[in-house]
């Protein structure tokens, strides 16, 4: 049957694919979001990124495998495309909703654009950035499961092998594991969100989807 080492390996693989994609997505989306939010220019990029959300990950993954070959690259691209829109739109929104009075005060104190962004706008935006990241984490961890369909590892392996072997116990193990990983990461990020929300603890709970729904319009 399945030993603990295998379970651990699959979970680590899963976290590896997800972490890689989320890291790349953050490297792309956070600087872009800061730029869009700070300058107010390039908001078409947010609309473009939101249109990407309609792309089906399974279709993208299978197509990329056929076009560029198997390996970790196709799922990573598909997962990055999934993770960029929520991080980008939340970062941009977080920066652009920074209280104009605070921004004006910082400018009046002689802050440069760089200082303004780093010391005023970014701390104000951080809770929204974290909630965008949280939404991205949920989607990426869930979708990394189908990497196993294109013959990679990860927790999805249990589900696909279980289906192929008519071993329902294995399927359920995979389902429970992936749900547990998603819940654990979401819980951890909820704590981070609380920590970066100065003076607002308990008043508003940051929720992964609420900000996106508004920004997407």
């Amino acid at each position, binding site marked *: 049957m399945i030993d603990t080492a295998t379970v651990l390996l699959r979970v680590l693989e899963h976290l590896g694919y997800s972490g890689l994609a989320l890291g790349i997505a953050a490297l792309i989306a956070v600087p872009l979001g800061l730029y869009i939010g700070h300058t107010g220019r390039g908001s078409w990029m947010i609309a473009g990124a939101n249109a990407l959300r309609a792309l089906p990950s399974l279709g993208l993954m299978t197509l990329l495998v056929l076009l560029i070959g198997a390996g970790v690259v196709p799922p990573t691209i598909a997962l990055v495309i999934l993770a960029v829109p929520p991080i980008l739109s939340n970062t941009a929104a977080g920066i652009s909703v920074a209280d104009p009075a605070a921004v004006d005060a910082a400018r009046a104190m002689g802050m440069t654009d760089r200082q303004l962004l780093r010391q005023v706008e970014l701390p104000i935006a951080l809770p929204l950035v974290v909630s965008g990241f949280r939404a991205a984490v949920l989607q990426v961890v869930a979708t990394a499961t189908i990497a196993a369909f294109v013959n990679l590892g990860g927790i999805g392996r249990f589900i696909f092998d279980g289906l192929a072997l008519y071993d329902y116990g294995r399927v359920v193990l*995979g389902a429970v594991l992936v749900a547990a990983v998603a819940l654990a990461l979401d819980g951890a990020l909820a704590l981070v969100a609380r920590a970066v929300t100065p003076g607002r603890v308990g008043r508003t709970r940051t929720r992964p989807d609420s900000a996106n729904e508004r920004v997407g319009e």
Partner: protein
Amino acid sequence: MNWMFANPDEFAALFAEHTALSLLPTLIGLVAAVPLGAALRGLPRARAIAVVVAGIVFTIPSLALFVVIPGLIGTRILDPVNVVIALSMYSLALLVRSVLDALDGVPPAVRDAARAMGYSSLRRIVAVDLPVAVPVLVPALRVVAVTNVSLVSVGAVIGIGGLGRLFTAGYQRSYPDQIVAGIIGTVVLALLIDRLLALAGWSLTRWQRVTEAAA
């Protein structure tokens, strides 16, 4: 693209199946979320629990739900009902919070005016609160519908999933054309549903533009 033009009937059938599998859960979610949200507003404790439960449901990956539901309710694993139930749960979880947010946003003065005019609370909810809540509710409904369109295709890995089956079939046959047809179909369907819902929201909120024009 060639595959699509060579097999228009099969494409149309999968497109129709995909439409049904994504719209049905959206509709079920909405029909359940509105009364549930309206009822929960008066029950702060139940509301807090419901919001937490909705958050947890949203965290469960769709593929996990697709494969676990048959074990829980005894359906066959290849039954489309599993997909419909799983997606309805997501839709409900997302929409119930939006319904609560939307109803919270109804100005107290509007509510008081309705009460003063002798509206019962049920009539007020249906005739006043809900129409006022539409501008908040429709964007959430659009997100849910578009999410459902993309989640349906994941069902293809367990043999259900409308256009998603073009991904699995194309992959197994090493036939990129078929996958491209599936991607185009899914994206077009998502955009179509999104536009239609936006249009529905627009036509339901004429009162908003009348007030703005008058102001």
